[in-house]
């Protein structure tokens, strides 16, 4: 174990983690949901194309929509009957065409046969199986995993980083996954390392997750070969430690340039839950059917880590945690820093949803905000060294286009600035407004 903790160079914040609510809660399966809504858009890229008709009977695991463009297919996550294609509420897209399946309660699943040669598959076959399984980045970004693993020929990488930092407050789904399925995490990591041709795997965790070190390292010793080595690096508990750029810097000392991908510095980053899904895809050709969701916050009486079929409605999850407490004011999809507040609970679990945080009481921005008092807390908190204060003043003055020198375009919206602002200013939103205005101006400039 390293004496000094890994961490990134500047900025960051230390919000209360609230992880003890669910850190000790083993992952449990929700009861079979009565129906699932499967939006055709659950990933970054083109929506999938339905390949089932209404009234079709489907088994769990059966493909219901084909991949289009760079996207991935969608699979039935419960057995039952397909209803007519319909527009349904979507947690991030407001509403989206969705395949609705009414469950028969049996959860009858297709039988998967193990491929004994799964560890030795050729590159293209691995990519095809990962894509066919519908896997996307399960840490929240939902970028198709096969795309991220298909490196252009001119890109040289030497390190695979497995992101187990889970720096968002409240969330423990990745922690529980590492603790309960260390072999699957390690197997997935080794498979992806072979896929991208690297010998070095670093699992990055925050210091409050040391319990996973021994299981992961033991699992790695059991499968280490071909000179591939896996090690666990302990990072400081510091938000946004799990942001790709920050984690890469913490573990390798390399800084990813603005608006570039980690591959620019020879690193591929994958989330722990994604690694588990990859093993299923390669070994059994089993698609991504369930995901782990941390349902937590003081808004539910029994916070839990739940294994949930994709498409299950959030109300079903809340019910499995004892129902809504009185006075719930915010329901956040994802963590409370970068997550999105939802207006309702009749929304489906999509592939990228790692947590559901139910909060009570008054939250930020409900009482308005004050002027900038130039306290410089946002400047100290920004992990990129941007100037949210200057951007916010210019946006307020109607001069968004003057905000480019202060870094609006480089912001990846971790929210640290808004978190620390003593005047409660929505600095992140000012950054977004400036970014949109600058991009629009750039498009106009190109067009004319």
């Amino acid at each position: 174990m390293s004496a000094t903790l890994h961490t990134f160079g500047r900025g960051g914040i230390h919000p209360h983690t609230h992880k003890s609510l669910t850190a000790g809660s083993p992952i449990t399966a929700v009861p079979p949901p009565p129906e699932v809504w499967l939006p055709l858009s659950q990933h970054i890229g083109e929506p999938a194309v339905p390949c089932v008709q209404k009234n079709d009977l489907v088994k769990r695991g059966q493909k219901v929509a084909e991949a289009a463009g760079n996207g991935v297919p969608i699979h039935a996550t419960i057995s039952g009957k397909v209803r007519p294609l319909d527009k349904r509420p979507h947690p991030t897209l407001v509403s989206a065409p969705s395949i609705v399946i009414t469950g028969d309660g049996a959860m009858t699943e297709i039988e998967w046969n193990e491929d004994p040669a799964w560890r030795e598959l050729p590159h293209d076959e691995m990519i095809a199986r990962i894509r066919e399984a519908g896997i996307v980045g399960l840490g929240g970004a939902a970028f198709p995993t096969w795309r991220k693993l298909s490196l252009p020929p001119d890109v040289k990488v030497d390190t695979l980083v497995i992101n187990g930092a889970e720096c968002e407050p409240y969330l423990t789904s990745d922690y529980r996954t590492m603790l309960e399925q260390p072999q699957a995490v390690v197997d997935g990591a080794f498979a992806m390392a072979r896929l991208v041709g690297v010998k070095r795997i670093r699992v990055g965790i925050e210091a409050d997750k040391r319990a996973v070190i021994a299981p992961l390292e033991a699992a790695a010793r059991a499968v280490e070969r071909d000179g591939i080595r896996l090690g666990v690096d302990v990072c400081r508990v510091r938000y946004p430690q799990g942001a790709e750029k920050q984690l890469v810097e913490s573990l390798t000392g390399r800084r990813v340039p603005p608006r570039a991908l980690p591959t620019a510095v020879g690193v591929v980053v994958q989330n722990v839950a994604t690694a588990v899904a990859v093993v299923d895809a390669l070994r059994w050709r089993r698609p991504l059917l369930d995901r782990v969701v941390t349902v937590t916050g003081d808004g539910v009486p029994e916070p839990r880590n739940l294994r949930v079929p994709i498409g299950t409605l959030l109300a079903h999850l809340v019910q499995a945690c004892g129902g809504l407490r009185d006075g719930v004011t915010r329901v956040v999809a994802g963590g409370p820093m970068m997550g999105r507040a939802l207006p309702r609970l009749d929304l489906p679990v999509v592939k990228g949803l790692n947590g559901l945080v139910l909060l009570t009481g008054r939250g930020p921005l409900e009482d308005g905000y004050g002027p900038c008092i130039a306290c410089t807390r946002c400047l100290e908190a920004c992990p990129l060294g941007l100037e949210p204060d200057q951007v916010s003043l210019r946006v307020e003055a109607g001069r968004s286009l003057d905000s480019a020198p202060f870094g609006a375009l480089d912001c990846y919206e971790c929210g640290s600035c808004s978190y620390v602002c003593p005047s409660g200013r929505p600095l992140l939103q000012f950054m977004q407004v400036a970014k949109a205005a600058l991009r629009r101006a750039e498009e106009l400039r190109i067009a004319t």
Partner: protein
Amino acid sequence: MSETTSPTPFVVAPGPHVHASESTTRIMWWVNAALAPASLWGVWVFGWPALAVAGSSIAGAIGGEWLAQRWLGRKPTIADGSAFCTGLLLALTLPPRLPWYAALLGGAFAILIGKSIFGGLGFNLFNPALIGRAFLMASFPLAMTAGWSAPRPWFGAPLDAVTTPTPLAVLREHGFPAALAAASAHGSPWMALLLGLRPGSIGEVSVVLVALGAAVLLARGIIGLAIPLSVLAGVALVTLPTGHVGLHLASGGLWLGAFFMATDYVTSPNTRGGQIVFGLVIGVLTGVIRLYGGYPEGICYAILLANALVPALNLWFRPRRVALVGSPS
């Protein structure tokens, strides 16, 4: 219970959905609390006149804030503690025997002209409390320079002596030994300087209590050390040739200015580099004014002059962009 419908709609606000506990109001009241020991000591040492000055100054500042926000149709923000803070800071720089109406006027001027006409909290160029003090220096020159009183009778010197020059004024006119003598008629003069048993403005007399308040703000992360240490370093640098660095550092409103006024967020630079330059400019100017200028004390004008540099310093010293720093490996 397995209720999954909420009687009230959920709040749909943009993230982040959690926030640090520090707020502008809390910061302001912490500053006020940190000033309390020095203020109470000043009132204790100088008696009722000092209390009248402090009360009038604070009342003037709050009244000014109320008036400005009424006239301009702004949301009233008196409870945020910033007007109180301006009034209190101003009072601490004033001589204890200043007429109460002058202090009232100074407080109102500080807020109205020092802050409100710039757009209120966050937009002023100059430290409002020091604008108030500069206004009083110009308007009540006699009361501002002769209103010093010796400590209260039970500490030795008679209150009826009414006016007695501050140690720095004595140093200026009569030299170092006389200044030490003026610092205290009883016991060790250095102890008198540190504890505040000597003539001076209401809040500046006890370096120890000002430092105690500053320590509270430092411990809570409300202020940093870059500005105050640079100010002290600047003063030490300029006064070194005189051989009286100790007296210069342990007297006057230096500590009050360095820790409570030069560190005002709005009127100080944003980055470490800018803050160091800003602090050094204040320290050097303070020393120069004390040694070669027309006043025995220079911190007030030094800070005001340095305030004018802040926009430029913020342009010259910018945070280092991680993206532009390059990769160490």
